[in-house]
């Protein structure tokens, strides 16, 4: 069972809807006893980095999340701000991130982009995965829906599993061992997202 971590932040409904559609067993929950039984985790996140971090820290499962991910090493997938929270810091706020992946979250650099490109980046954009990343297995010409003003910057570029271009190339997804994150919204990306969640449920 996949637990979708409910800590009072947005896109939980969309993720549950899509997992139900593709027949993957999942439960959106904030209950530690439910989360303890999960064999995979999805960490959603939308909105402000600090607000998400504060809400997550105040949740009843914050300790358990660390244990499940760092000790039990079960697969987890961060989505959007859920991906950004994997990093150490963010330019958006003052809160420290989870720090499970070395690096930071930075704002799109407007001075390196054409003025016609507005921030937030709110578009369907093609992503270019590395051959080894299983999340994109069997997905031809993957494209996903992005909504973000910030993106992750990994200290180790080898952890970037896909890039996308908006003004310049940025990390669209990252993975370090059992910990993965995607900057885009698979739950809002039609069959591309269904395939990605299916891969996460089967291949991880």
């Amino acid at each position, binding site marked *: 069972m996949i637990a979708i971590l409910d800590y009072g932040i947005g896109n939980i*409904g969309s993720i549950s809807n899509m997992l139900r559609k593709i027949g993957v067993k999942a439960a959106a929950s904030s209950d530690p006893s439910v989360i303890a039984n999960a064999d995979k985790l999805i960490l959603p996140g939308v909105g*402000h980095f600090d607000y998400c971090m504060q809400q997550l820290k105040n949740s009843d499962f914050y300790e358990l999340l660390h244990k499940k991910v760092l000790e039990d090493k079960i697969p987890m997938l961060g989505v959007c701000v859920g991906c950004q929270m994997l990093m150490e810091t963010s330019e958006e706020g003052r809160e420290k991130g989870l720090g499970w992946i070395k690096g930071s979250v930075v704002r799109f650099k407007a001075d390196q982009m054409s003025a016609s490109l507005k921030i937030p980046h709110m*578009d369907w954009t093609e992503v270019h995965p590395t051959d080894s990343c299983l999340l994109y297995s069997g997905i031809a010409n993957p494209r996903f829906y992005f*909504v973000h003003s910030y993106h992750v910057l990994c200290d180790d570029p080898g952890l970037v599993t896909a890039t996308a271009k908006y003004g310049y190339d940025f990390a669209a997804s990252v993975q370090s061992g059992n910990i993965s994150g995607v900057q885009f919204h698979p739950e809002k*990306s039609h069959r591309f997202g269904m395939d990605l969640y299916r891969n996460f449920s089967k291949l991880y």
Partner: protein
Amino acid sequence: MKRIRVIPVLLIHKSGLVKSEKFKNYRYVGDPVNAVRIFNDKEVDELAILDIDASRTSTKPNLRQIAEIASEAFMPLSYGGGITQIDEVKEILFNGIEKVILNKMALTQPEFISRISERFGTQSVAVSMDVKKNWLGKYRLYSDNGSKIVREDPEELAARFEKMGAGEILLNSIDRDGTYEGYDIEILQRVSNAVTIPVIACGGASGIDDFRMAVTDGHASAVAAGSIFVFQRPHHAVLISYPSPVELKEKLYSQL
């Protein structure tokens, strides 16, 4: 290749899906939930759903219908109509809608924009602006589904909405609505240039050439339309359609 979002706008009136002409003459198009399902199958970029009665009649958003729509839609969705409370915003966003669209509230209580963006992020709140050119050639903003004139200048207002935390502007031309005469490029360009957030063109599209011009000449970041996605010309039969990926690539993305 740069893609731009092509967004069908669906109007809900008395629980049914309708399409207007110049914000009047509503024509029944079908059942909203069914229409969303068809648009979902066509893999549209995004959908905007506007309840055009809610604000005028002070009715609350129909959360049950919204949740039903969202459960079968695997693309970004935005909803507008009758939203006045932060708890309603929360309920809507948690049910699988990405963005709420404000219109009257953005004018009467602009701090409501800030409250939403501080809590849920700027990407979760868009403001819809309905504009019309008067007989002197001056653009005026209207509220209450085109029935009340607003004194302030549309460009200044757009800039203020951005400052308050709006993530996007949906710019509707009342004159062009349902006319197939093309977008009003002049006001589109003015508003787009007045803000740094994305502006979505709406009102008057007759085809992909209009989408292209909205971006190249009007500086829009995305395009929206109603009639061309629900009617088939010349006889205006109801038929839900959406350009194919190949068409969009050849006639739109590659021309930008």
